[in-house]
Structures are given as C-alpha cells and as structure tokens.
C-alpha cells in the first residue's frame, strides 16, 4: 500500500529513519561477527573499534579445538532435525483430522490445542525431569542424559502450535480435489500422502521454522536434562563454557555465538517468504 499523498521531504525523512533503525537493529549481529574475527588483543581492548585490520580465525579454531564443540553442534542439529521432521508429519495428520472431518469433541480438541500453547514449558521442567528419569529405566533411549530426553518433549511442545497453524493450509486445499481423487480410485492413504501432503508442504515449511528455532534455541531443557553426560550436550551449554570467573573469553563466546546463530539465519532466509505468508494465514484464521 503506497500512500500517494506522502510528500517528498517526509518520505525522505522516513527513509532515513528506516535505514538508521536497520543499522541499529543489525549492529549487535555485526558486532558479534566482527568480534569473532578480531584478533584476541583487539577484542579484549580498552578501545573497541568498529572494524578490524587483521581478521583472523583464531577464535573459531579455539572454539572447535578447545571444546567438543563440533560434537555439540552435531547434537543440536540432530535434535532439531528430528523434532522438525517428526512433528511435521504428526501435526500434518492431526491438522487433516480436525479440518477434513466432523466428529464429536472436535471443537474441544481445538480449544485444547490453543490452551496447550499457553502452557509455560519452563514450569514443566520439574515433572518432566522425574518422568524422563523413570522412563529411562525401562526405555534406555529417552532417559535423562540422552538426546531422546531433549527430542521427545520438544516434539510434544511444538505440536499444538504446528497443528493450529497448519489448519489454514489444509483447509485451503479444495474439497473437490478430494472427491476427484476418490472417483479416480485413489485410496485414503494415497490421497493423504501423494496429493494432500505435497500441497500442504509450503505450510509445513513455515511451521517447521518455529519448531526448529524453539528446539535449536532451547537452553532450559538442555541444561536440566543433560545432567552429567556432557557428550550429549547441545550448543547453548557449550557456549557458557567460555564464561569464566577469571575473565570471559569474549572472542571465543562471540565465535561460538556466530556458529550457533548462522544455521538459524540461513534457515530463516530460505523460508522467510513462506514464513510471512504463513503467519498471515495463521493470524487471519
């Protein structure tokens, strides 16, 4: 929407304000990357300068060398990847059920999915801790200290929002298409996986951004459920190692932060168009 009556000086002022704001908003990220490539002496300097003449990868080498950082990175990737894929499929099935069928308790379920989104995940850390501890005694893969203890709760917590958001995308596929498929002799599961699933896929991508980010960023579960098995730690915990009582290794912290931020940025850039339209759909619902 362009406003035809915005006069030129005002528009220039608005554009200057927009560019200035963009610079301020981007500055922390710029400073993070800059500090990651500065040589150590310039990071811990009394006179911080907004540029560097000798970029170096020392901090990254320190990060990947000193700690089991590469392993933590892979752990984070594995946990977030599993959560995204499993929750996408499960949410797709559930969203199909609540949009394509009329059945008893349908509205009740929808309200429940909405209310479930509001549950403060953080408050459930205590019961989940005991639940996972007990579960680990019968099923070894999901107990405390395992990656499963991070994957399972994150799948469960990402589902209500994913289902809620996917409804709009499933509903957008015309009913006539379903009828036509059945007339052509397609079975229910064939329609579900070979026709509906590909059509809803853009919506799944938009939804998966949220489950990916909440899992990748998670700090509390990673801190609480991986009690002693540091080989199963994820990135947020690895980052805190560089905070030390005798003085923080800021270069290391910034390099590790960069490594942790970049995958999310890439993911965001890849899906941002779908994200905005997906959000619009979710909001209008």
């Amino acid at each position, binding site marked *: 929407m362009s406003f035809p009556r915005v006069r030129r000086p005002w528009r220039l002022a608005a554009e200057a304000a927009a560019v200035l704001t963009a*610079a301020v908003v981007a500055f922390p990220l710029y400073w993070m990357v800059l500090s990651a490539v500065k040589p150590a002496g310039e990071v811990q300097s009394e006179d911080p300068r907004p540029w560097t003449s000798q970029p170096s990868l020392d901090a990254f080498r320190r990060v990947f060398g000193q700690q089991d950082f590469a392993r933590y990175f892979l752990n984070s990737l594995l946990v977030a990847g599993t959560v995204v894929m499993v929750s996408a499929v499960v*949410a797709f099935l559930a969203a199909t059920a609540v949009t394509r069928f009329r059945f008893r308790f349908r509205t009740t379920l929808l309200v429940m999915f909405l209310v479930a989104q509001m549950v403060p995940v953080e408050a459930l850390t205590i019961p989940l801790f005991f639940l996972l501890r007990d579960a680990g005694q019968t099923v070894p893969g999901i107990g405390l200290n395992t990656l499963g203890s991070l994957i399972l709760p994150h799948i469960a917590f990402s589902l209500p929002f994913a289902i809620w958001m996917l409804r709009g995308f499933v509903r957008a596929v015309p009913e006539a298409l379903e009828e036509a498929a059945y007339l052509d002799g397609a079975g229910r599961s064939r329609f579900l996986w070979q026709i509906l699933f590909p059509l809803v896929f853009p919506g799944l991508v938009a939804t998966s951004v949220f489950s990916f980010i909440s899992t990748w960023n998670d700090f509390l579960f990673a801190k609480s459920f991986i009690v002693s098995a540091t080989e199963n730690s994820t990135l947020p915990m690895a980052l805190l190692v560089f905070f030390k009582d005798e003085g923080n290794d800021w270069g290391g912290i910034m390099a590790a932060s960069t490594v942790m931020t970049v995958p999310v940025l890439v993911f965001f850039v890849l899906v941002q168009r779908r994200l905005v339209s997906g959000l619009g759909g979710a909001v209008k619902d």
Partner: protein
Amino acid sequence: MRTHSRWTPWLYLAPALVLIGGLLVYPVYELGLISFLEYTQAQVSGGRPTSFQGFGNYAALFGDPQFRDVLVTTVLFAAACVLSTLAVGCALAVLLTRVRALPRLALMAAALGAWATPAVTGSTVWLFLFDPDFGPVDKALTGIGLSGFEGYAWTYDRYSAFALVLLEVVWCSFPFVMVTVYAGIRAVPRAVLEAAALDGASQWRIWRGVTAPMLRPILVVVTIQSVIWDFKVFTQIYVMTNGGGIAGQNLTLNVYAYQKAFASSQYSLGSAIGVVMLLILLAVTLGYLRLLRRQGEEI
C-alpha cells in the same frame, strides 16, 4: 469407494494425542500433584516417604516476602517488555508503509536477523555490547560526554540490569510484531483507502476509521503472544544476570522456580511457583478466547 469410518480422524490424531498427552498433559497433572506434596532431595532419593501437604507449599510461598516481590517484579517487567515491544513494532510497521522498497528491505532484513538470533546468543552479544571493560556502548556514551557511564557495570544495579534484559527482549521480539502488523496494514484493500481519501478524509481520520478497526484482530493476537512470551522470559535473565542477579535481585518467576527446584532441591516449592504461572497464563488465554469469540471468529 469412500470408507467414512468413524475412527479415521482419531487414527490420524492418535500420534499427536499420545505425545501431547504423555509429555504435556500428564506433566501438568504431575506438576499440580508435586505442588501439594513435600518433595525434596530426601523424598527423591527414597530416603523419606512423601507426605501430603495440602496447600502448605502455597501458604509457605505466599508467606515469603521474596516470592511476593518476585511475582510483582515479573508482572511489571513483562508489562514493560510488552508495551515497549508493541510500541516499537507498530511504529516500525507504519514506517515500513511509508518508504520505498530499498529502505524497507534493509529494515526487514535487519529485523529478520534479530528475530532469528537464538535467545542464548542474543544474550551473550548484548552482554558483550554493554561490557564495562570491553563493550562499545559504555565507550560511546562516555564519548558523547556522559562521563558517568565510564566503566559502568550494567548488571550490578537492579534496574539497569533489568533495562539491559528489556533491551535484548525488545530487540528479538519486536520483529514478529512489526512483520505481522505490516502484513495486516498491507491487507487493507486499497480501494477502501482511496474511497475514503476521495471523500476528503484526512490521513488521521482514515487511520482511525478504516485501518485501525481492520487491524484490531491482529493487534489482539500480537499482544497476547507478547504477553505469553515476555511473562516466561528465562534464558535472557539466566544468562545476562548470571542466574537471577546479585542476591537474586533480577529473579523472575521462571528463574525463581528453576532455582528453587534444581539449585536448592525444593521441588514442591518450584512446582507451586509453576502452578501459579500456569494459572496466570491460563487467565490470559481465557481472556483471549473471549475476545476472539466476541469478534465473531469461528475456531
């Protein structure tokens, strides 16, 4: 051909319901249960039997001046975060509609970057920016003549520590508001705006009479989302104030519950705090549902 079994939808729902039931609904029940028990390290290790306390834990909690203080602090801090986020997000959304493509792209890109930044790394970066020894902010403030900021340690003082966390929270959560409200403004049909302009309505009148009413549902959504997110802020407080600040001066409910449970093994008190949070957020949600219903939205 079409076998419309009564059970098909439940078959599709089964995996979701099992996961949500087992890892969300059941833990909520457990949370409530633990909050009524005496549950400390002795009971966890099986050294002593658990005993039912009734509302004893809640009585202890509300009798504790620190808890009351943390509760009030959390509400005020969340309110400050929500108001700042909404103000910044809406102002920038309007700004986006007044500029050409290139500045808009710049602002959008910067905002998406802030949005995508994980809470942990956002916290470490802002902490570094405001570091008393090596951070650029104190240096810049000193540079423009505010000598009081030379080597100023933001995390030592209660209010400046909260201000620092607030800045980070607003930085990473205004993009959601901005993008959503901007999409909402864009969705207002152009013909309606032009008709209003032809009828001689002023910009302000168009905003009040046309745009704002059409934006109301979106504003409700972003407000409620912000309330829910900002009330639950954990990572930023934990990382930036090192677990709740000096002598717990920067504790919020979430961090307080965590410290009670996992640092001092008072699991029942931690659970009771969790229940209080749950009830507050439930009240917000019910208010949201009523608003939606009043607007005639169907779910």
